[in-house]
């Protein structure tokens, strides 16, 4: 049993690609070893900015020997067939045997394959890893033809304590496998001779390289938290930034810097965006949750008092330059009222085939006004005003420089212009919800504008037939549809979606393309199914309700799904479902035989058995109850009405023979069951429900 250690040492790997690359490296080896029939103990991959490493332990030194028998043609087969067989197994006529089989005399070859040394396979897999690692973007360098994420500089490959004999052919240069690596680029650049993984990890740690990403993250978090605590502050959680920063350093060293007081009047969203996206700094807050005038930068150097001061001062100066730009924008953007900027949106593209942003805003304004009527407590004039101003901040210098704060800046500028607070809030919130975990607006005006923005987008792109296909959704239409679903459902809006789509479509006027929005509702149905499934609702229940068709009121649809799911979980529901299946199986079979359906009215005079009379009565009562309950949209009551059918239906099946000899009785009974089926079908398609 032996250990394999591989290190692909390169120039700096982009942070965002590192975690995936480590997983891919491991997968390539695990798959390759499995395909070669080699068992192993465990495999772990590691990644730092300059290295991808893999350790696999408990590997055998060679594959097991294999013995394989192959049957060839008949012994008296034509010369050519026999020669072909001998060629395929690489043996001579004398080396294969003849065997009697029930089908005659056949040639048999026994091929003994001795297992290959594991070392050979590892060399091949190492070459394959360099070749096949699926980087999002890769490059060539110098005169080489081999691509890699950035220039590959060295390959360490040790198996069972010995350097593997092999090399990576880059096309021009060749990288011979070694047992050497290097530590931190500046703090420990000398070569390190490595024995095994344990030695590798330990020597790297002495050479200012923390191999394990998780360890780097823990160290950053621990030290940054301590630095913050020393000032009575708290680190603002930012797992995405932590991931990225852990990929920018081999020896993380958090340091704290100060933001000039003059910049603290800039909106905190701008400060954090500037610090985060441009400088990769962590933001801090005080005990009241207010953004503090401190930041944390994670350097890639060891602690050293003088150097720390230099690094902090340098970073503070960079931030000062960035924020002085932001402050300039903050001051000058407010010179022109937001409302005066709407005209300039004519120069901002929405989408070429769908016109400019100014057109979009005009449509959104009408649509928000229209939607306001279906939203409790929504002032339609405020909704229209907010929609009119919603995109105006796209023409401000601040949003041009920091696109992440679109909407938020609009809110600040609207407040500055003394627009009503509901309008300002709606401008900030109209892009929400941007994902399943994003907060969903609840203020009436915000809801109207958020819906108008998304519905306009969806209707436009569906009208010009640029719908999402497979994994391609360049305009994030799926996210927009989910946004609409969440806005409607979470705010319990009674909105006939098809009517809204038609209205939104009419606002576009003429467009090149099929121009229809008929596919939009089914697209919503699919999105809703995904959404509900993620919330743990059974997909067959969703299907059972969707199968009814024509429903575009999501709130009503969900109420039905919920009542149904409660009903089928109950004892009555479960048993009624069994009886329903029995009834529909019988009816379906007889319909097939007769080539006709049994939808005619039940003739009470031909009901002979007590049980069928009782069922007929129960059905009439249930039908009346159902009709009333459905009219009131009281789906629980509708389910209750159905529940009353359970006992009579069970009794019917126990005591009545459907296929009676008398055709009149038989047809009447089949009609009775058909009516049961259609009554239940008013509530849901029970046929879709799985057992």
């Amino acid at each position, binding site marked *: 049993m032996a250990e394999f250690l591989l290190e692909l040492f390169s120039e700096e790997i982009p942070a965002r690609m590192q975690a995936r690359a480590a997983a891919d490296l491991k997968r390539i080896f695990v798959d390759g070893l499995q395909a070669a029939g080699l068992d192993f103990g465990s495999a772990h991959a590691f990644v730092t900015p300059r290295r991808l490493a893999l350790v696999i332990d408990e590997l055998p030194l060679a594959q097991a020997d294999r013995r394989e028998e192959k049957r060839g043609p008949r012994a008296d087969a034509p010369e050519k067939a026999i020669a072909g067989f001998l060629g395929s197994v690489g043996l001579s006529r004398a080396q294969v045997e003849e065997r009697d089989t029930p089908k005659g005399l056949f040639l048999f070859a026994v091929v003994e394959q001795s297992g290959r040394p594991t070392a050979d396979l590892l060399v091949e897999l190492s070459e394959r890893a360099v070749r096949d690692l699926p980087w999002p973007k890769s490059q060539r360098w*110098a005169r080489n033809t081999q691509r890699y994420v950035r220039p590959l500089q060295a390959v360490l490959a040790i198996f069972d304590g010995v350097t593997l004999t092999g090399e990576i052919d880059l096309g021009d240069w060749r990288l011979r496998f070694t047992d050497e690596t290097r530590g931190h680029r500046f703090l420990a650049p000398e070569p390190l001779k490595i024995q095994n993984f344990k030695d590798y990890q330990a020597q790297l740690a002495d050479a200012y390289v923390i191999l394990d990403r998780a360890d780097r993250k823990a160290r950053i978090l621990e030290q940054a938290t301590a630095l913050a605590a020393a000032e009575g502050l708290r680190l603002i959680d930012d797992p995405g930034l932590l991931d990225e920063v852990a990929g920018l350093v081999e020896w993380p060293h958090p340091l704290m810097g100060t933001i000039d007081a003059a910049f603290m009047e800039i909106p905190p969203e701008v400060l954090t965006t500037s610090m985060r996206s441009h400088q990769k700094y962590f933001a801090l807050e005080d005990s009241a949750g207010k953004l503090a005038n401190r930041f944390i930068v994670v350097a890639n150097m060891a602690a050293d008092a003088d150097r720390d001061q230099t690094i902090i001062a340098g970073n503070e100066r960079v931030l000062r330059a960035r924020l002085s730009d932001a402050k300039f924008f903050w001051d000058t953007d407010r010179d022109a009222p937001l409302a005066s900027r709407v005209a300039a949106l004519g120069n*901002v593209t929405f989408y070429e085939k769908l016109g400019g942003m100014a057109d979009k805003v005009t449509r959104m304004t009408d649509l928000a006004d229209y939607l306001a009527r279906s939203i409790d407590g929504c002032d339609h004039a405020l909704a229209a005003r907010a929609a009119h101003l919603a995109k105006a901040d796209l023409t401000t210098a601040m949003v041009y420089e920091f696109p992440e704060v679109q909407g938020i800046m609009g809110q600040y500028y609207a407040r500055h212009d003394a627009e009503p607070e509901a309008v300002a809030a709606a401008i900030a919130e109209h892009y929400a919800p941007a994902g399943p975990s994003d907060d969903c607006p609840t203020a009436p005006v915000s809801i109207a504008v958020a819906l108008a923005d998304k519905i306009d987008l969806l209707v436009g792109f569906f009208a010009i037939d640029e719908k999402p296909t497979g994994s391609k959704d360049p305009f994030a239409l799926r996210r927009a549809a989910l946004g609409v679903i969440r806005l409607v459902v979470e705010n319990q809006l009674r909105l006939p979606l098809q009517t809204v789509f038609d209205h939104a479509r009419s606002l576009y006027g003429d467009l090149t393309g099929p121009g229809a929005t008929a596919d939009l509702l089914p697209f919503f149905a699919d999105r809703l199914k995904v959404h509900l499934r993620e919330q743990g609702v059974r997909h067959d229940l969703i299907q059972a309700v969707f199968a009814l068709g024509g429903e575009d009121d999501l709130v009503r649809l969900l109420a039905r799904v919920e009542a149904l799911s409660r009903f089928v979980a109950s004892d009555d529901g479960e048993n009624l479902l069994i009886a329903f299946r029995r009834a529909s199986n019988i009816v379906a079979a007889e319909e097939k035989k007769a080539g006709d359906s049994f939808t005619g009215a039940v003739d009470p005079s031909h009901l002979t058995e007590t049980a069928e009379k009782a069922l007929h009565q129960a059905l009439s009562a249930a039908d009346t109850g159902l009709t009333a309950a459905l009219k009131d949209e009281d789906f629980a009551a509708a389910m209750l009405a159905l529940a009353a059918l359970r006992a009579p239906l069970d009794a019917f099946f126990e005591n009545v023979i459907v296929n009676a000899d008398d055709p009149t009785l038989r047809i009447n009974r089949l009609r009775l069951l058909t009516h049961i089926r259609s009554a239940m079908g008013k509530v849901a398609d029970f046929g879709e429900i799985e057992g």
Partner: protein
Amino acid sequence: MATATTADSTAPARDFQSLILTLQAYWARQGCVILQPYDMEVGAGTFHPATTLRALGPDEIWNCAYVQPSRRPTDGRYGENPNRLQHYYQFQVLMKPSPVDSQELYLGSLKAIGLDPMQHDIRFVEDDWESPTLGAWGLGWEVWCDGMEVTQFTYFQQVGGIECDPVPVELTYGLERLAMFIQNVDSVYDLDWDGVPKDQGGKVYGDIFKQAEWQFSTHNFELADTDTLLRQFDDAERACHALLAHSRPVPLPAYDQCMKASHLFNLLDARGVISVTERQAYIGRVRALARGCCESWVAAGKDAQEQANG
């Protein structure tokens, strides 16, 4: 002066012109051809034919370095912003094929100008470079020194839509920013230009360029005659196409016209007369010129080689 310590005498001078001289001397020592700026208005050092065209051919080995004044009309701030200029200097290095120790060579240049990596926090942060007007792209990093982007480091993959083979590495130093960092000043206009004390006629950056920034900002944003610019753009485009189509193709003068068109587009952009949709179309037109020049340049190189061999 006689009392200067060893450390002082080896520390490089920090004024702006010395920064340029030090970088030139360093890259000359690495075997680079030291060129002078190209004598036309360009948006970046990459536009210099020594980079754009030489990245493609005909030499198998091409190492050069030069300063290039660069003009970005939209970045003008009338001399009021301490960090933004419509005219600034880039120091550009191109090495083809990219040396095995490209990063080490680059770090050596930082040391030469007084940025010892052991005294700072130097990092290579992913930044893929693309020039839509040149039809060029590459992968690499921005190099950060204590959080400040001091250099763009790029392995060219394509120029003028043509695959680079061999692959060059391009280093672009933003000289003003680097000098501000080294001199520890917060405004570009306070940069010491020549190391001469003020009372002996020494100049700071603002003495030389502040007036120019105001004048050119005024011109670029307000005064430049857009009809003339539009006409000149069309003229340059037509001239470029005509030169490329000539029976004796002359890619170098054609490329001059391409650079002209590119700068005229930048001026039109600053004047705010190009809408978002038109913008893409203009960029596409300049890219077509760049592509044509690069193709013609590569073809001319091949012809010359065949003549030499035949």
